[in-house]
């Protein structure tokens, strides 16, 4: 186990900058998830750590060593690929043993390690089969086995669950967490699925266009997103964004939208007071869009009509139209009966307000 440090890491293809000034320290034993939309540079960053991509500028350290010039095999890493990348013409046993055999480990020791890894992942029965005889989940477990067998310092995961169907994905997420408990290794995990990011990571790194947007624990990212992109990317259904004006009404600062206004809580006034522009973006997560009238000191409620409902069983997702064009999403109790176009009275929970600068998208704190 070792820590991984990325210092000012850049990757350029000609004039295209795929990864820009990435600085990240993954602590010893930490599980860090890189998440972001396609093309954000997360896979490229991971591959630079692995040594499968050249580093244009910057340093990568694994443990105490600078690994920029080291080939993948000398970096003491293991990697799990999206398409499993198993050796199709070898048995599962040989797949697991391949890396050890190439390093001239004794067959007896290889056997011990392979059996141990197989036990950890529950694939002992599959050792004599070939990959094409296995299901997707089994193949991925073999891929994980390949990692575990060598006791490397760092695990790297490149979207390993993307090829699995939804149900299997959920199962494998839990398996991965169990694996972590048994084999705690510094890990960097890349995914485009924010659910995986939130459930698996000790810390989450959100990336966009090659740059890191925010590095924080899942809860912190959820509750205190640093900019509009992070706020909208993390959390499903996504955060609602409204254009509002900051106005002083009755000696209190209010955020005024088209057909309602909400009183800015006292502890937030000071942050917003520094805001030069009066027009800002207000972000509200669906669970903070509440049914019914607010308390008078919180501002006013507003009218809306039900547009679409989505029954999830555990809750009901409602999209409502308030005023001319605003559409908000809300989560309500699954038992609620809501008809199409039914008028509702809604309000916003003042504890769930996020303000963002209209131009830069940065959170106003």
């Amino acid at each position, binding site marked *: 186990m070792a820590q991984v440090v990325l210092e000012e890491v850049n990757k350029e293809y000609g004039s295209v900058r795929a990864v820009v000034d990435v600085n990240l320290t993954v602590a010893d034993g930490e599980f860090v998830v890189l998440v972001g939309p396609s093309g954000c540079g997360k896979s490229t960053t991971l591959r630079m750590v*692995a040594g499968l991509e050249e580093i244009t500028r910057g340093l990568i350290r694994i443990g105490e060593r600078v690994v920029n010039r080291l*080939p*993948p095999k000398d970096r003491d890493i293991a990697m799990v*690929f*999206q398409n*499993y*990348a198993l*050796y199709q*013409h070898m048995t599962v046993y040989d797949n697991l043993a391949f890396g050890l055999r190439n390093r001239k480990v004794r067959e007896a020791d290889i056997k011990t390690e392979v059996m141990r890894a197989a036990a950890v992942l529950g694939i002992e029965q599959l050792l004599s089969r070939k990959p094409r005889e296995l299901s997707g989940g089994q193949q991925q477990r073999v891929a994980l086995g390949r990692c575990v067998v060598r006791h490397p310092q760092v695990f790297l995961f490149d979207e390993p669950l993307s090829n699995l169907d939804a149900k299997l994905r959920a199962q494998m997420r839990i398996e991965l967490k169990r694996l972590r408990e048994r084999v705690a290794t510094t890990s960097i995990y890349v995914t485009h699925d924010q659910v995986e990011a939130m459930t698996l990571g000790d810390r989450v790194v959100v990336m966009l266009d090659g740059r890191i947007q925010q590095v924080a624990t899942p809860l912190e990212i959820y509750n205190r997103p640093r900019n509009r992109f992070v706020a909208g990317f993390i959390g499903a259904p996504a955060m609602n964004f409204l254009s509002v004006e900051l106005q002083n009404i009755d000696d209190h600062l209010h955020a005024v939208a088209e057909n309602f206004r909400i009183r800015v809580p006292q502890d937030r006034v000071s942050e917003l007071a520094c805001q030069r522009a009066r027009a800002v973006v207000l972000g509200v997560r669906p669970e903070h869009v509440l049914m019914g009238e607010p308390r008078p000191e919180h501002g006013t409620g507003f009218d809306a009509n039900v547009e679409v409902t989505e029954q999830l069983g555990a809750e009901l997702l409602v999209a409502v139209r308030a005023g001319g064009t605003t559409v908000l999403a809300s989560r309500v109790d699954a038992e609620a009966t809501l008809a199409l176009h039914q008028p509702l009275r809604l309000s916003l929970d003042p504890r769930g307000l996020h303000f963002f600068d209209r131009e830069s998208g940065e959170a106003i704190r």
Partner: protein
Amino acid sequence: MAKTHPAVSNGVAPRTAPDQPNAEPRLGEKERFMLLLIAPAGIVLVLFQIVPIIFGANASFRDWQLFNPAQTWVGLKHYLYILSDSTFLTVVLPNTFLLMFLSVTLSLIGGLALAHYLHRNFAGQWLMQTIILLPQMIAPVIGAMMMRWVFNDQFGVVAAFLDWVGFGPISWLAQRWPSFFIVIFTDVWIWTPWFALILLAGLRSLPREPFEAAQIDAAGAWRTFTHLTLPMLRPVIAVCVLIRSIDAFRTFDVVWILTGGGPARSTEVFSIYTYIETFVNLDFGRGSAAAIIGALIILAVAGAMYKVAGRVTDVSR
């Protein structure tokens, strides 16, 4: 009957036409269309391949000299003669199969090497690919003439080189095995580019990730090649070897120009033997019999190879 080579189609499983209801007459509209599509080709094939073969089969049972119009029936006389002809059995057939085996094997190895060479982006790759393609594009006759000139024992490049290095001259075309060597060399020269091209396409179609995993697994160059590349290329290799082997059996041009079957008929291969019987010895009956025997041999060999190739491609899936 024969089914499609799995590796031949572009990785896409061929789709079937929409099914028609069972109540249709046998020669329905679909069938008429099919026959119409192949009618012209079918006529050409019948007239210029099937009819001649029947003609030749007929001739093979007759005593038919090209200068003598009488065509008396002699049954299997020609077949028995050929099958007991020591030249045929100990020289011609072994030569043919040896040529098949060596040419295909060496071209395959060369093709694999060249495919790896071309399988990287470097400046001048197009130029190198052009150079590599050239032997395959020029006429085999020209290629053979080139090689004959290069190996000319008095004035060829090779003779000059041997002289410079200190060896005495080798009269290549005066002895059996040196001549045969040149024949094989020329054939390999002509066909390695074909293998290279197809194997290059195969290499390019291989998935990237197992190789990256192998990099991480500290697999060296040779191990990656034997444990990953070769098994993944097995279907392509099988099809190439099958097609090329069948082709190699009927080699004519190269041998004819380089050695004419000599010296003293020692480098004859099947096509040459047949040609000589017919147009030099002017014995059409015996030549036809030889032609039919050869056809049957290669059909049998091809059938066997096809089965093996089929098994290799399915297992490799």
